[in-house]
C-alpha cells in the first residue's frame, strides 16, 4: 500500500499533466531574459513568456523571486561509470562507457544538486585514441539505459600530450605501469593516431570490397568484424564525433593537420589550455573548444594556461564551453561560467552559453537541450538567486519535465534516511550479539548428540 501511495504522488509529474513554473526570472540563453512563466507538457517546453495561459489542472511550481535557466550541460565528465581508463593499449577504441554506466553513482545526484542535467561521459586520457563516450542525462533513480541521452550522436575520446606519453614510460604516469607502452613522446602520439586511422581506412576498404562483391552477386564472406577499427571508420565517415584532450598549441595544430590529411573533423578540443595561442586556426577549422575557467599549472603542459582562454576563444569566433572533468567542480559550473565575465568580460548571456547552448551544440544535441525554447526538452534548473552569483543555490531540477532534485524535499527526507540507517546498524549489532552467544548453546547440544551436524 505504501508503495502505491508513493507512485500516485509521482504520477502527476510523469503523465501528460501540464506543469507551470510561475513567475520566475527566465534566463532562456537564446531568447533573452524576462520575468514570466514556463509551460511544460509531456516532458517538453510548450511555451515560455511573460504571460502564459495556465491550463486547468496544471501543476504549479511557484518560483516568484527565483531564476530558471536551461539545465547545465557538462561536455567533459567521468562520473557514473564503473571504469574510465583502458590504459594498456595505445588505441582503445574497442571499449565504451555505455557498457559500464553506473546509475548508482551518487555523483549523479550531486551533479543534479549543482544544476547539471546532461553530461558527456568520456573515456580517460591514457591513450592517443581512447574509448567511446556516452552522453547521459542525470536521471537519478533510473537504470543504466534510463541514463542514456537517446539520439545524441556517438563520440570518441582522443588524447594528446603528457598523459598519453607518460602512460608509456616506465615507473611514471598512470598506475606506474611496468611495461613500456608506445608512444613515449608527442611524435609517437601523432604516429599512433595516423597508424590507427590508416588501419581503419584499410578496414573500411575491406568492407567496401565485400559489399561490391555482394552487389555483383559474387560469393563472398564478410570480413572479420574488428571492434577496434569500427568506431574509427565511423570517425572517418563523420558519423562519430572526436573529442580530443589536448593542452599545447603545437599538439593542437598537429591534430588539426592529421584531421585535414584524413578528411574528418575534430568536433571539440578538450581542455585546450593553450587554445588562445592558436584561436584563429581553431576557428578556421570550425572546431569547438571545451576548457576550464581558471585551473592550471597542475602539470608542465598546463603552465601556459590563462583564465582569459575562454573569452579570447569566444572573441575569435570559436564555439566554447566550460567543462568540469571532475565530480566536484561539476557541482558549480555556474560559478565557473561567471569567471568568464571577470576574466575577459563576456556578457551574462555569453557566460551562460558556455555551460548550456554551446556544449549542447558541441555534443550535437542543441535541437533538444541547451536553452529555454518551445519544443525543447524540459530540462530546467531553478536557482534561488541569479545563477551567476556565488550565493545562488539550486532549488529544483527538472529533466524531461520530471522533478529529479528538490532541495526542500531532500532536507525533509534526511532524518528519515538517518533513522533507517540507524535501524539497520542496530539490527546488525543485535544479530552480532546473538551470534556471539550461540556457540555456547551449540556446544551444549553437542554434548547430548555427539557428531551432530551443525
Amino acid at each position, binding site marked *: 500500500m505504501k508503495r502505491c501511495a508513493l507512485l500516485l504522488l509521482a504520477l502527476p509529474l510523469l503523465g501528460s499533466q501540464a506543469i507551470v513554473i510561475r513567475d520566475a526570472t527566465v534566463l532562456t540563453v537564446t531568447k533573452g531574459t524576462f520575468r514570466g512563466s514556463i509551460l511544460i507538457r509531456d516532458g517538453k517546453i510548450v511555451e515560455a513568456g511573460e504571460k502564459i495561459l495556465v491550463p486547468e489542472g496544471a501543476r504549479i511550481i511557484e518560483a516568484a523571486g527565483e531564476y530558471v535557466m536551461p539545465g547545465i550541460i557538462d561536455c567533459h565528465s567521468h562520473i557514473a561509470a564503473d571504469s574510465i581508463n583502458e590504459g594498456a593499449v595505445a588505441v582503445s577504441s574497442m571499449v565504451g562507457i555505455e557498457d559500464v554506466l553506473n546509475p548508482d553513482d551518487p555523483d549523479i545526484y550531486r551533479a543534479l544538486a549543482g544544476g547539471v542535467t546532461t553530461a558527456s561521459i568520456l573515456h580517460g586520457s591514457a591513450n592517443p585514441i581512447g574509448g567511446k563516450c556516452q552522453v547521459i542525462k542525470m536521471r537519478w533513480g533510473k537504470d543504466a539505459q534510463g541514463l542514456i541521452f537517446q539520439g545524441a550522436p556517438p563520440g570518441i575520446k582522443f588524447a594528446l600530450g603528457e598523459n598519453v606519453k607518460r*602512460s608509456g614510460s616506465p615507473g611514471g604516469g598512470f598506475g606506474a*605501469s611496468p611495461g613500456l607502452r608506445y608512444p613515449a613522446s608527442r611524435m609517437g602520439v601523432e604516429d599512433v593516431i595516423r597508424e590507427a586511422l590508416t588501419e581503419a581506412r584499410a578496414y573500411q576498404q575491406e568492407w567496401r570490397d565485400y559489399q561490391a562483391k555482394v552487389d555483383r552477386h559474387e560469393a563472398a564472406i564478410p570480413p572479420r568484424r574488428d571492434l577496434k577499427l569500427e568506431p574509427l571508420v565511423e570517425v572517418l565517415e563523420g558519423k562519430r564525433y572526436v573529442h580530443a584532450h589536448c593542452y599545447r598549441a603545437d599538439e593542437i595544430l598537429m591534430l588539426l593537420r592529421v584531421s585535414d590529411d584524413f578528411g574528418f573533423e575534430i568536433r571539440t578540443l578538450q581542455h585546450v589550455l593553450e587554445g588562445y595561442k592558436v584561436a584563429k586556426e581553431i576557428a578556421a577549422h570550425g572546431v569547438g573548444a571545451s576548457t576550464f575557467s581558471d585551473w592550471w599549472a597542475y602539470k608542465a603542459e598546463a603552465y601556459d594556461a590563462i583564465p582569459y582562454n575562454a573569452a579570447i576563444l569566444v572573441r575569435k569566433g570559436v564555439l566554447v564551453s566550460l567543462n568540469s572533468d571532475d565530480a566536484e567542480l561539476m557541482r558549480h559550473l555556474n560559478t565557473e561560467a561567471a569567471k568568464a565575465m571577470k576574466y575577459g568580460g563576456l556578457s551574462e548571456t555569453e557566460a551562460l552559453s558556455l555551460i548550456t547552448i554551446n556544449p549542447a551544440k558541441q555534443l550535437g544535441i542543441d535541437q533538444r537541450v541547451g536553452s529555454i525554447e518551445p519544443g525543447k526538452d524540459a530540462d530546467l534548473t531553478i536557482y534561488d538567486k541569479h545563477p551567476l552569483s556565488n550565493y545562488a543555490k539550486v532549488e529544483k531540477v527538472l529533466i524531461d519535465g520530471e522533478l529529479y532534485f528538490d532541495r526542500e524535499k531532500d532536507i525533509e527526507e534526511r532524518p528519515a534516511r538517518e533513522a*533507517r540507517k540507524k535501524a539497520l546498524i542496530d539490527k546488525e549489532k543485535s544479530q552480532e550479539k546473538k551470534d556471539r552467544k550461540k556457540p555456547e548453546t551449540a556446544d551444549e547440544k553437542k554434548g547430548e548428540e555427539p557428531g551432530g551436524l551443525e
Partner: protein
Amino acid sequence: MKPLIAILLAAASFAYAQTNGAIALRGARIVTVSGAVLDNGTVLLRNGLIEAVGTNLDLPKDAWVIDSHGCTIYPGLIDALSTVGLPETPAASRRETPATPRPGGQDLPVPVEQGPEFRPFTTTWVRAADLLDPTEHRIETTRSAGFTSVVAFPSTGIFAGEGAFLNLSGEKQGRMVVASPVGQYVTFATHGFGTYPGSLMGAIAYVRQLSLDADYYQVALRAYQSHPAGQKRPNYDRAVEGLLESPRLLLPADDAKQIDRMIRFAAELKRPAVLYGGHQAYQIADLVAKSSTPLLINLKWPEKPKDADPDAEETLRTLELRDRAPSSPAALEKAGAHFAFYSGGTPAQDVRKAVKRAIDAGLSESAAVRALTLSAAEIYGVADRVGSIQPGKIANLLIVKGDLFDEKSKIQYIFIDGVKYEPAPEAAPSGARSGRGTPGGEE
C-alpha cells in the same frame, strides 16, 4: 601397483556395498521435487538409477530394504557453481610472457602482442572434466554436507574454461562426470595498466570480440569446407573452439546494475547465458524473470568487513544490501524467475544455514529445495538425469533425519549413483578415513 590400490581403497572406503540387486528406502517422507511430497513412501534403486518411487511399491525379493521411518529423502543437493574436485591451483591462464630476456640485461617486460588474435586471460579450451582429481579433499566434506553433485569450473582468467557436472562419488574420474562441457566460466578479472584488458569495459569489449570472432570462424570454416580447393585455409583457433563447444556462458552479475548489464549483454551476444552472483536481485527480480535468464545465487551473503574501521561510516546502500541480500531468492520466487544456489566459498557444512537465512527472508522451503536440486539440473540441461526423485534418473539421494533446514537434523546418508555414503564424522579432519562399509562393487 600397491600404492594405487591403497589410494583407490581409501577413496572408496566410505562407500557401502552396492549390490547388483535393488535397494529400497522404505517408510520415509519423500520430497520428489518434480512431483508431490510422499509421506510414508519408498524409493527403489537399481544399478545406480531410481527404478521406482511411490507409497505402495511391490518390492522385489532381492531388494535390500533400508528402513527409513522418520527420515526425509531429497534429491541429492547440487552446488551449481564450484571448484570442488579440481586441484586448488588450476592451470594458470595463458598470459603471454616474454620468451627471451631483453638485451642489456634490463628486466623490462616485453610489450604484449595486441594483434587481432591476441587472446589474453583465455583458456576456453580447458575442461574441468579433464582437471578432475578424485582424491581432492573437499569432495568428502562437500558430500558429507548433503551434496551429491557439483558443477565445477576452472576459475582463472576472463574465459576460464569449460565446466562439468560432477557426481561426488570420489572414485574414478570417468565415472564422476555426468555431463561435460556444461558451460564456459567468464569473469571480468582485469590487470590494471599492465596488459589489455585492464578495465571492466575492456574485459566486456574483449568478450564481445571473441564472441564475434567465433561467429566469423564458423562462417569462414563453413565456406572453406564446402570448397577447400583454391581457397585460403582459415587458422585453427583453440580459444574460439572452446567457446563454440560451451553450451552456455556464465556471466558475473552481483548487484542490480550488473544483473541489468549482463542480461542485456547476453541478449546482444545471442548466446545462452547464466548469471552468477545475484545478491541485489531483490531490487530487480521482475527484470530477471522477464529476461528468462537463469540466475545462480551466491550463498555467501555479504558481511560486514571483519577488519573495517569501526569509525568509518557505511552508506545506507551498503547497509541495505547486507540486510536484504538474503531476500533475493524470495523476490525471485515471487517474480517467477529461474534460479539456483551455489556455495560461493561458504563451507559446505554451512550451506544449509545460509539457505535458512533466505527462507527466513521469505523463500518457501519447497523453492529452496528446488534451487538446490532440480533448478540447477535444469539450468545446466541435465534435468533428464538428475535433480529430482523420479524413475529413470540417477540415484543421487540425500536422507536426512528430520527436515533439511532444521539446524538439528542430521544427515543419515547420501546415495550417489546408487552407492551409499555416510557423512564423515563431524570433528574428523577431511581426507581418506577407514570406513565401515566395503568398497563399492561397481563394474
